């Protein structure tokens, strides 16, 4: 390529044709190089953000603690956001917890620990957004799968690829998972083919099979789109409202983006509010019982608490009860779901080393 390169509008097409001219060996080599380069960038970012960020923060705070600031209205999607607390002259007193990665090789979460003699409890809602989608879209097949405690992605794959659940391969499960999430984020066949690297025609077939399987989801999408087009805004289960005036745009791309944002908002915002309700219910119950347990944070769909070891069982029961039964949400906001929720509870000495805390542990 010439050194005095000038971008042309068909950059993607030219790039594709250049790739087509290369030998398979060259392509594999290039792919390996780029994969390694991207993983290097990821690790460097991790190091800079969390290792250096935390080290600088504890040095600034002059104690082994970081301080974060939660923002209940910091995102357009209605999700909670979290940043390091801003100290004197803009110095950060912590790191953002909401982007804290979960990794086995480099367990960044391990750095955040419970006080001595205390346990760190993490309770994570499983497939939360899809459960919310099943409820708001009133999608019977999806609701029924959740009621039967099935793994939704394996179940979906078994129906889409027409085979028994125990015969579903990992790749097929991944495709089913990708379809479900793409639908929530307003994606289509093209995005699916790009995401899981399958031919476009195959992606189209999968999406149409998915639509047959979960018709309620597509009906709901149509309803949401019509409502946004008519009102210029959309509201969630909890009454949160997002104005989407771009839906009136004459540019199709801009309009479609507003429609995607609206659909996504109804799911993500509701999921986030369910989590906040759970936190409020748990804290209320902990206070009512006079326990020492303390709320620490929320990360994505999980809540984090620390408590003295002698309280662990009781606090786990409170957390599980509130997260599964949504007592606070029902009594204070009058919202209830007709889909069961599921949580994975882990207990350890740090945020990163928790071990599953099964229901049998309560006995």
């Amino acid at each position, binding site marked *: 390529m010439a050194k005095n390169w000038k*971008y042309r509008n068909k950059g993607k097409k030219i790039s594709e044709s250049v790739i087509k001219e290369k030998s398979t060996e060259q392509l594999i080599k290039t792919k390996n190089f780029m994969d390694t380069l991207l993983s290097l960038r990821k690790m460097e970012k991790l190091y800079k953000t969390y290792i250096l960020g935390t080290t600088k923060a*504890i040095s600034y705070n002059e104690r082994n603690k970081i301080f974060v600031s939660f923002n209940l209205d910091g995102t357009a999607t209605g999700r909670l956001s979290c940043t390091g607390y801003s100290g004197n002259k803009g110095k950060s007193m912590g790191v953002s917890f909401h982007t804290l990665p979960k990794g086995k090789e480099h367990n960044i979460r391990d750095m955040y620990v419970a006080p001595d003699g205390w346990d760190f409890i993490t309770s994570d809602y499983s497939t939360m957004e899809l459960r919310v989608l099943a409820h708001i879209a009133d999608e019977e097949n999806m609701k029924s799968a959740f009621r039967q405690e099935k793994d939704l992605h394996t179940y979906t794959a078994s129906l889409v690829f027409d085979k028994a659940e125990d015969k579903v391969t990992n790749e097929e499960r991944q495709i089913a998972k990708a379809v479900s999430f793409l639908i929530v984020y307003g994606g289509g066949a093209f995005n699916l083919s790009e995401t899981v690297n399958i031919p476009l025609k195959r992606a189209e077939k999968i999406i149409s099979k998915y639509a047959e399987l979960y018709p309620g989801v597509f009906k709901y999408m149509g309803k949401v789109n019509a409502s946004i087009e008519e009102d210029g805004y959309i509201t969630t289960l909890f009454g949160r409202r997002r104005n989407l005036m771009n839906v009136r745009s004459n540019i199709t791309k801009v309009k479609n983006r507003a429609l995607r944002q609206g659909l996504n908002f109804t799911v993500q915002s509701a999921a986030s509010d369910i989590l906040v309700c759970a936190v409020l219910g748990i804290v209320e119950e902990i206070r009512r019982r006079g326990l020492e347990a303390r709320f620490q944070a929320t990360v994505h769909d999980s809540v984090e608490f620390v408590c003295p070891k002698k309280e662990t069982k009781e606090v786990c029961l409170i957390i599980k009860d509130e997260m599964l039964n949504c007592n606070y949400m029902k009594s204070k906001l009058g919202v209830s779901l007709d889909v069961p929720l599921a949580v994975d509870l882990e207990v350890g000495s740090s945020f990163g080393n928790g071990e599953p805390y099964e229901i049998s542990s309560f006995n």
Partner: protein
Amino acid sequence: MLTVRNANKFDWENIPITDCMYGNAMDAHYTLKVFTVLEEKIKELGLYDLCENLLSPANTVFLEPEFQGLNVSPQITREVGKKLNTSIIDVHDGLFDYDEVSLKDNLSSNNDLKEVLYTREGGFELYPPDKTPKGAPSVSKDTLDIILSQINKELINRG
């Protein structure tokens, strides 16, 4: 604080107590004024329940971990950091095993990476599918993801 401009760079540690009191009083005064105006609007939009039973109590509950902070183990931080740093060095060194990369290249520099991927003869000789806002060949993650997806697609097509 309403009385402070550019709060992020302000020297909060040395603010005179009278300025601090005055600023806080102003904040409280105007928050109350704004509240009385917004309360009606919130009721009108049907958002009162959400504010009263979710957002308002959540503000108080989330204040606790903000105030208490999260415990950090400096020893584990050092250990994780050391391990991560070793991996970074290993992966970084591995990139220089490719003939397309010269020992003089700084792979953290976008300019050098641009040469390795696109412009240098004997480099990977790809074509950038996207440009930077200034019109140069992009080496951002999104652009590299496009190239990777194109390569993956081509490899699948070739079986």
